[in-house]
Structure formats: C-alpha cells, structure tokens
C-alpha cells in the first residue's frame, strides 16, 4: 500500500501549477527567446536569427522608452497612494454610518463592476472637449467659455487618466479596508477610550496597525492589477497625442501589434514585467511583515 505518494500539498497545488505553466510560463519563455531575435510578425523566419541583447540595448537607449517608463512609474505612484488614502477615508466614512450601511457598501462596489475599457470610454466621453460632461458643466456654470482640451493637452490628459484610474480603483481599497475595520476587535478600542485616548490616538495606535495588513493586501492586489490601466489609457488617448501620455504598456502594444516588431516589443515587455514584479514583491513583503505583527503569519 505504501507506495511513494506525493505529499498532499503538492497534489493540491498541482492543477494551479499546471495551468499557470501552460498559459503564463511557456508563452513567457517564448517571449524571452523572441526578445533576443529581430522577430517581426510579417516575417516568420526572423524568429531564428539570434541578435543577443540588441533589442534591450535599443530600448534602454531610446528616449521614448524612458519617458514612457518614467511616466508609468509616476502614474502608478501617484495613483496607488491617492487611491489608498481615499479608500481609507471612504471606508472610515462608511464604517461610521449606522443606518443603511449595506446600501452604501453596494454603491461603493459600483466602480468595481466597470470594465477598465468601459471606464476608459466613459471618461473619454466625460472629458470629451465637445460633448463631455465636464466641459458642459463648466460652460453651463459660466466658469469657462471655451472647450478645455482635457484629452489633447499632455498634462490635462495625464490628469484625466489619473481621475479615471482612481475612480475605478479607489473602491477596491475601500472595500478591503472596510473589511479590515470590521475585523478590529472592540475591546482594545473601548479600553483606549476609557483610558482617555483621543479618537485620533485610538485610530493611530489601535485601528491603523490592525488594518495595515488589509491596506497592504489592497496595495498588493492593485499592484498585480495596475497594468489594467493599459485598457483605460489605450481607449482614452492611446498614448497620444504625439506620445504625450505614452505609458510603457501602450508603447509595447503599439510596437508589437501596429509595427509588428514582436522581438523589440517583447524585450520592452520583459522590462515592464520586472517593474511589476518589483512592485508586487515589495508589497508582498510589507504584507507579511504586517501579518507577522498581528500573529497571522504561518
């Protein structure tokens, strides 16, 4: 009976490993290989010409690449921080409500049901300089008499994208942080109040440490997901006008599909993968540390 049996955890994990290997790992190995070739979709034989690190060199010396890279990091940093703060604020607001909280929570989840591409179209519509909600409102209120080119001016477009991105993701933070707030035990808070802590002190020293793991979970989830911003940006401006809102992902997409230069696009893709991995590992470590403080780590 006692043949060599694989351990239970391995059997349980096997399906996950198999599917991820098939759908993610193998294509990524292929893309790693092709990033060392001058592969073009239109010329299949170019897949077999090895050119070493030429694609990476080209990317790393390209000004377009670096501006897109910098803009991506900037967008991620601003967006994640603001979303986190606003999500925390929203969660605290909703947590204080005693009546109709369930309805509020449902409303709060509203943006999460919107596809990023839908968010893109929605805000493209809202920020449209001719028929958009924002310009219509500003003009009707008499605040401005000209059409503000929200999606045409580089800085304004960046702002519009940021608004769209925040609208779609703040509620993820709010929901998860709210879950954390529910999990905060009552006793220490009551004890702190009895001992004469101000509400701020109670929040800072009891509530916040408790919801920190949830904040990091939310940050890590978002950092896994930030590339969704690609959909939004692709629809709203597609990196334009004249590359003024170009992000790493739109650059990759254009190079790969429009210019059909797969090898070069894959090389840049790898750089973007490392960027994503960096963010994820960073938040994951924070999460584990925060969990450890609460004794939730294993």
């Amino acid at each position, binding site marked *: 009976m006692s043949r060599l049996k694989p351990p239970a955890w391995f059997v*349980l994990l096997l399906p996950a490993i198999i599917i991820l290997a098939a759908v993610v790992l193998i294509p990524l190995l292929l893309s790693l290989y092709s990033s060392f070739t001058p592969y073009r979709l239109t010329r299949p034989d170019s897949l077999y010409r090895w050119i070493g690190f030429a694609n990476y060199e080209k990317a790393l010396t390209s000004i377009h690449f670096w501006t897109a890279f910098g803009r991506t990091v900037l967008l991620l940093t601003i967006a994640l921080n603001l979303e986190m703060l606003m999500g925390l604020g929203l969660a605290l607001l*909703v947590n204080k409500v005693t009546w109709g909280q369930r309805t*509020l929570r449902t409303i709060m989840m*509203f943006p999460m049901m919107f596809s*990023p591409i839908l968010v893109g179209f929605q805000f493209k519509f809202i920020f449209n300089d001719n*028929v958009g909600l924002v310009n219509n409102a500003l003009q009707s209120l008499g605040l401005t008499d000209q059409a503000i080119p929200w999606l045409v001016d580089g800085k304004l477009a960046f702002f519009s994208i940021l608004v769209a991105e925040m609208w779609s993701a703040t509620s993820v933070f709010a929901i998860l942080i709210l879950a954390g707030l*529910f999990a905060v035990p009552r006793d220490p808070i009551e004890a702190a109040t009895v001992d004469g802590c101000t509400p701020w002190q109670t929040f800072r020293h009891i509530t916040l440490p408790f919801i920190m793991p949830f904040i990091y979970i939310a940050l890590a989830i978002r950092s896994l997901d930030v590339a969704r911003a*690609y959909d939004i940006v692709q629809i709203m401006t597609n990196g334009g006008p004249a590359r003024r809102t170009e992000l790493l992902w739109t650059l990759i*997409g254009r190079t790969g599909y429009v210019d059909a230069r797969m090898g070069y696009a894959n090389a840049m893709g790898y750089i973007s993968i490392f960027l994503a991995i960096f963010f994820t590992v960073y938040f994951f470590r924070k999460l584990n540390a925060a969990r450890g403080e609460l004794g*939730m780590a294993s």
Partner: protein
Amino acid sequence: MNENLKHRIKARILKALHLVALFIAMAIICVPGLWIVLNSFRPTVEIMAKPPVWIPSELNLDNYRAMFGAVGEGGVPVVQYFTNSLIISVTSTVIAILVGMAGGYAFARYRFKGKAGIFIGLMLTRAVPGVSLSLPLFIVMAKTGLIDTHVGLILVYVALNVPFTIWLIDGFFRQVPIELAEAAEIDGCTRWQAFWKVEFPVARAGIASAGIFAFLTSWNEYALASQLTRSTFSKTMPVGLRDFTSEFTINWGGMCALAVLMIIPALILTFIVQKHLIAGLTFGGVKG
C-alpha cells in the same frame, strides 16, 4: 449646562459634516455611471447638442432597439457577444475557484519547504502585464489553434484568476481556526470530511467573494481578449464595445446601451453574493 450644549452642537456639526462628505463621495462614485445609463436612453442628437441639453426632453429605447435589432446589417451582434462573455466568464470562474480552493487550502494548512517561494512565484504570474503576455500568448494560441475559441480564452482567464483566488482563499482559510478542523478530526471525521463539513462552510463567504473577483475579472478583461478573439464566435463584450467606434466618430448612445448591458449581470451577481461577501469579510472578527 453650557458645556453640555457646546458638546452637543459640536457632535451635531461633526455628524452633518460626516453626512455631507459621505454624500459627496457617493455622488462622485455614482454620477459617471448614471450618466452612461442616462445617455443610453437619449437620442444621439441630444447627446451631441450644443449648448448641452441638461433636462432630457425625450427618453427612448432606440439605442437598445438598434443594438438587438440590427444584427446582420452591419449592426453589432450583441446577443452573441453576451453569450460568449457569459460562457467564458462562468466557466473560467468555476474552474478558477476549484483550483484556487485546492491551492489555498494547501497554503493555509500545510507546511512545506519553499512555501513562500512557491507562493510568490504564483503571485508573480499574475503580475505579468496583459500586454506583455498577450504578445507571446498570441503566437502560442495561433500555433495551437486555440485562437478565437472559447476554450482558449477560458484557459487564459483561469490562469489569470488562479493566483488571486488562491491568495484570497488562503487568507480566508487562515482565519478559520485550525482547532475547529482538529476538533472535527478528533471526533472521527476524515480530513476530507472535516474540510467539507467544518472549514468549507466557515470559509464559504470568502470563497464567494473570491468568485466575484474572478468573475468580474473575466467579464471585464480586455487587453488579452482583444488580441485572442477575432470573430463574433468568441468576441466578448468588452471587445465588442470597440465596434461602436469608427475611424473618426463614436456612436456614444449605442456604446452606452452596450455598457449598461455589460454592467447589469455584474450588478445582479454582486448583489446576490453580497450577503456572503459582507459576512465573509466580517468573519475576520473570529481571529481578533
């Protein structure tokens, strides 16, 4: 007395501020969505009107009629897209949850070598941006003939959702006290029974919320679907939205109608599972 009154006024002002802040926050969340819903009922002339028409003079179902009626004559085959989306999302969610439950249980309950490494490895597969993945995936799918099929997209979405599902479910199983399962085993349950009779019901709510996330991800995914689908046989709704754009103009009304159609199932589903979701999220209280 005076002190008392001051205190009461302060409390009341704070409460009013709280309500105002809450109202503004909710308005910001709702208005963009409601605007889409409103515009789906308005004729194109009114949407494009200058100066803007604030109070709609005419609401009709023309956009919806056009959407469902004009199949074949250059219209958008919305029903087909809807069916594709539904089949693909539901199937991939069910599979992802099953795979995720197995994986999450393994991480929550077993100790093994390289656990942290494997876990991070799984998570990192999710961190790969869709665009970077879509390029090689496109080549692989084209070679294996899975491009433009339901199966191809389902596989992709399962892989996309599994890491996150494992992670969420791991977290929820972790919050089920291990003593519960041990007690069940002492009482004569096998590990399998202990799982289904004790741990699963307790973590069910968490699993439901993982399911919502998985469903919404597949339902809304665009970057990969836009490359891996070609024809109406497999195009999903997010990809279908693009059918309303042409070179220089966008049919806003029609697009809004499709958008509403896209949101409704997500809304209903979230509503049904919400009870579980809230219960599941509050279950963290057990741990504290």
